[in-house]
């Protein structure tokens, strides 16, 4: 890469026939360069675009391997390492969230796992939440956004390091779910049979969806990490149905927030373009790799990334 400022002087007095181990000269120790983009570093638009593209690709890839969107990594990277303001970073991220949702939707649609009725119902709450969140994000100070983002990152790290519960408990009766016909069934390919489930605690689901929508609009993330555990553990939906339904909702929710950011003039084409392309392609690669990867190790790496980002976002908010 063209980081001439940080480049080490070429090794002198040593040719390819030297007796040094081959790894030595090919991989010099990283020079002390400080943060990637401090003001002294001569970073130009092409390099910035390339770096954002690569990091967004990595975020989309990692995110899809562990089942979250890329936004949760993209925003810390854009703000902490690349000096983009948090509002502009959030606006760029929310558009990539729409893209990832649409990209994943095709697979879910063909398997008919999504609970479309429940998705539509909860969507009312997430969309209202997103409208409130996106509107708030453009008026409150960046300090609060950093703090809230740090908290959500820490929560995500915590919820991901817990063991996943796959089977939902027995659902208590719920008059709303009965009246609205929310109960459903789907054909589980890994089990080789149809799975029926009953939906419970619809009102709780609506409340949590409202909060998830607001967080999504405020922070430019999908918010599945808030909805999915509640849909699974409290509402009684099988985890696959939760993931598919949440993904369906995230696209609509993110489109709502994105519209607000767009009209407010927060979407920088220069930043949003490499983020959208990178995250989407990364998520596609991740979906293809899924299954062949060592899940535990990827999860561990991801949780570590989240913890470090959480600390840095909180620090930036508190300072």
């Amino acid at each position: 890469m063209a980081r001439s400022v940080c480049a080490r002087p070429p090794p002198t007095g040593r040719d390819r026939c030297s007796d040094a181990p081959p790894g030595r000269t090919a991989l010099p120790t990283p020079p002390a360069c400080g943060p990637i983009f401090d003001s002294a570093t001569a970073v130009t638009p092409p390099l910035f675009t390339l770096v954002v593209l690569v990091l967004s690709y990595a975020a989309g890839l990692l995110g899809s391997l562990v089942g979250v969107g890329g936004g949760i990594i993209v925003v810390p990277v854009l703000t902490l390492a690349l000096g983009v303001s948090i509002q502009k970073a959030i606006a760029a991220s929310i558009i990539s969230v729409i893209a990832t949702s649409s990209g994943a939707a095709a697979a879910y649609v063909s398997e008919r796992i999504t609970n479309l009725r429940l998705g539509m119902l909860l969507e009312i709450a997430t969309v209202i939440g997103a409208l409130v969140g996106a509107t708030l994000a453009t008026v409150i100070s960046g300090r609060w956004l950093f703090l809230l983002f740090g908290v959500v990152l820490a929560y995500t790290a915590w919820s991901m390091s817990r063991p996943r519960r796959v089977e939902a408990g027995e659902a208590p009766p719920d008059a709303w779910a009965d009246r609205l016909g929310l109960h459903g069934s789907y054909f589980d390919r890994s089990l080789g049979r149809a799975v029926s489930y009953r939906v419970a605690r619809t009102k709780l689901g609506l409340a949590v969806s409202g909060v998830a929508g607001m967080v999504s609009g405020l922070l430019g993330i999908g918010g599945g990490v808030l909805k999915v555990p509640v849909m699974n553990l409290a509402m009684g939906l099988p985890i696959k149905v939760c993931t598919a339904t949440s993904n369906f909702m995230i696209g609509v929710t993110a489109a709502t927030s994105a519209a607000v950011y767009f009209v407010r003039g927060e979407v920088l084409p220069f930043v949003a373009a490499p983020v959208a392309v990178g995250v989407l392609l990364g998520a596609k690669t991740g979906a293809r790799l899924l299954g062949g990867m060592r899940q535990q190790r990827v999860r561990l790496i991801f949780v570590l990334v989240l913890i470090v980002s959480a600390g840095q976002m909180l620090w930036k908010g508190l300072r």
Partner: protein
Amino acid sequence: MKPASDEKVFQVDGAISALLRIGVAASLVLIAGGTVLAFLEPGGYADTPAELSRLISANPAFPRSLGAYRHALFHLDGQAVIIAGLLLLMVPPIVRVAVSIWAFARARNGIYVAITTTVFLLLLLSFALGRAG
């Protein structure tokens, strides 16, 4: 209401999924193409550190009048092409909701026509609300 399998809604959803995939691919092409244009064309992104700080802190991000935007797009301004691609990304979820209204109506499911219409109207409201602020 019986917990029907919403066959019609799924069928419609499945039918548009191919369309949605094409939509996402087309917006990627626009976004990537627009970026290349912006780097190459005169008056696009300059290759200096000063330009970078201008680009990441522009406020507002882009000409906000529709007329100015149309003019830029007509002249194949790179950033205008990128915006077209970003806006196109927003279309699939909106289309999905709109089409679901129609599918629930065909299934004669009045409650869900109302619920889905509410979601759709809220989505449209977001454009109006952003503008008011």
